[in-house]
């Protein structure tokens, strides 16, 4: 009898241990992601919801807020400066994304060859990526300085005239684009390089036997196989260009006039210069929705192209 009871106990114990183990097994993933989840909730998701709430109000950070409904969004729709900032962002994104991706691909193809010192060359091209945007902006402002800048000094030595790089609207955006490409190039290069190295050399050998020249190989083997990298870079570069702040804040401050003010600059101005928290938040939400939409469209397109391949 006692022996049976003991056995029963044992079975029950094993069973409860099993249930407990299963429950623990179920909880493990949630425990593992909980630090990140807590941080995201406190510092990303909650602020985002709060920003949506603020965007329906008129609020100057101090004092009471007034409910406006969609007032801020209507105002934004009619605000010429917002459209200008959006247009600036679009132009800036188009120039910087296409230039830094095209040059990045070119560099990656070149540096994928067996060349003397290619590791050093890769590092030199990647180096600007690690420089702080504040340092880059400061340095670029100094190099493009109208009177003492080295760029104008070189132009004069080459027998050309000085250019008022940062003090005229038509040259400020190109200067900014040059600085941005300088920063971004290395990252695009290295992702493309990683992608190139994962293409089996067998494909090229087979193409060579079929008599395909270098251009055909690039067009029909390299480019299609780089598609996933291209889509990824497109998403990351567009997000980067839509979010760029530090570089512009330091290099041009959004000027001269409004010529290099991007949406994020305008948001910053509305929030911290004119203290219109509601309006700033409304612009922020619109910008976020735009970025999300862009990403979803690109993601869809990339999946479609992959199924075609």
């Amino acid at each position, binding site marked *: 009898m006692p022996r049976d009871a003991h056995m029963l106990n044992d079975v029950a114990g094993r069973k409860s241990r099993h249930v407990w183990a299963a429950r623990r097994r179920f909880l*493990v993933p949630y425990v593992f992601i909980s630090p990140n989840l807590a941080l995201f909730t406190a510092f*990303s998701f909650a602020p985002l919801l709060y920003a949506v709430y603020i965007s329906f109000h008129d609020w100057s950070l101090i004092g009471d807020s007034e409910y406006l409904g969609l007032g801020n969004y209507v105002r934004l729709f009619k605000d010429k400066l917002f459209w200008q900032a959006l247009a600036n962002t679009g132009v800036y994104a188009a120039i910087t994304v296409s230039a830094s991706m095209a040059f990045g691909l070119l560099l990656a193809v070149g540096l994928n060859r067996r060349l003397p010192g290619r590791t050093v060359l890769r590092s030199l091209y990647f180096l600007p990526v690690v420089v702080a945007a504040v340092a880059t902006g400061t340095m670029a402002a100094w190099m493009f300085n109208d009177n003492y800048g080295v760029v104008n000094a070189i132009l004069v030595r080459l027998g050309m005239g000085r250019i008022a790089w940062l003090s005229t609207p038509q040259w400020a955006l190109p200067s900014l684009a040059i600085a941005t490409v300088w920063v971004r190039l290395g990252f695009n290069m290295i*992702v493309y390089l990683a992608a190139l190295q994962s293409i089996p050399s067998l494909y090229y050998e087979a193409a060579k036997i079929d008599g395909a020249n270098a251009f055909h190989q690039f067009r029909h083997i390299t480019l299609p196989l780089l598609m996933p990298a291209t889509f990824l870079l497109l998403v990351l570069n567009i997000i980067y260009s839509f979010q760029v702040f530090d570089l512009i804040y330091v290099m041009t401050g959004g000027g001269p006039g409004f010529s290099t003010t991007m949406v994020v600059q305008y948001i910053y101005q509305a929030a911290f210069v004119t203290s219109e928290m509601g309006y700033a938040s409304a612009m922020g939400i619109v910008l976020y929705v735009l970025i999300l939409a862009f990403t979803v469209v690109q993601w869809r397109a990339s999946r479609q192209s992959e199924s075609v391949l």
Partner: protein
Amino acid sequence: MRALRRRIGTRTSDLLVWLALTAGALVMIFPIYWMFATAIRPRTEIFASLVALVPHAITWDNFAAIWQRTPLLDWAGNSMFIAVIGVVVTVFANLLCGYTFAKFRFPGRDLLFFAILGALMIPIQVIIVPEFLIVAQLGLLNSPWGVILPRAAEAFGIFMVRQFMVSIPDELLEAARLDGAGEFNIFLRVVLPLSRPIIAVLVIFTFMWRWNDFAWPLVVLTDHAQYTLPLGLNLLRGENNPEWGQVMALALLALLPMLAIFLAFQRHLVQGIASTGLK
């Protein structure tokens, strides 16, 4: 004969490519050189009507002036504290989180993963005001923790880790489980040793983001003694008639630790990125 001609052909094209790449690299490195060249030359040369490409005289005055005028050690200390603690917290949390998304099935997984990817796309300016209010409520204004905690969860890192860890064989984890290893031990002793390339990439990128961070610290840290190096640099260059020699000296000093990290880990960079499936 044809093979020889082809080889000479490749040789010439290799040479042309090499020349072009080297010329490009010189252009890319020029701004860094210029930072250096401005930092070590005297004021009279910096503000010459037509600046010379190579300094004639060399001086350390700009560095001395920085040392005297600014709380350089405080700034460097703050930057280092924020970057090092930030790297430790973020890299560890990202590895654990990315591993979980790669290797566990659990209800709500895909939804949570998409939410985290959505967080990647939030421009800081969108949430900077509410985030500021939350950090103020927590009493973390003018504290390095006010900079560290809100940036500790990094969506991009989680994404990269997940891509990398998907390729770790399940059999390995199952074998460890059969041996009775706890889940956290499996992560520490089986998964992490296999993850060196991705850890190298994460360390470089996270250190870079924290060390160079500007927009968020600018809002949280208002006390000059609490400033990081980028904020200090912004302070100097924002003066009326900035002393460009000193500004560049500070920029150069701020770049050095980042360069050290980069040189230490750069060998793993291409391989690491290749292995994350960022391709």
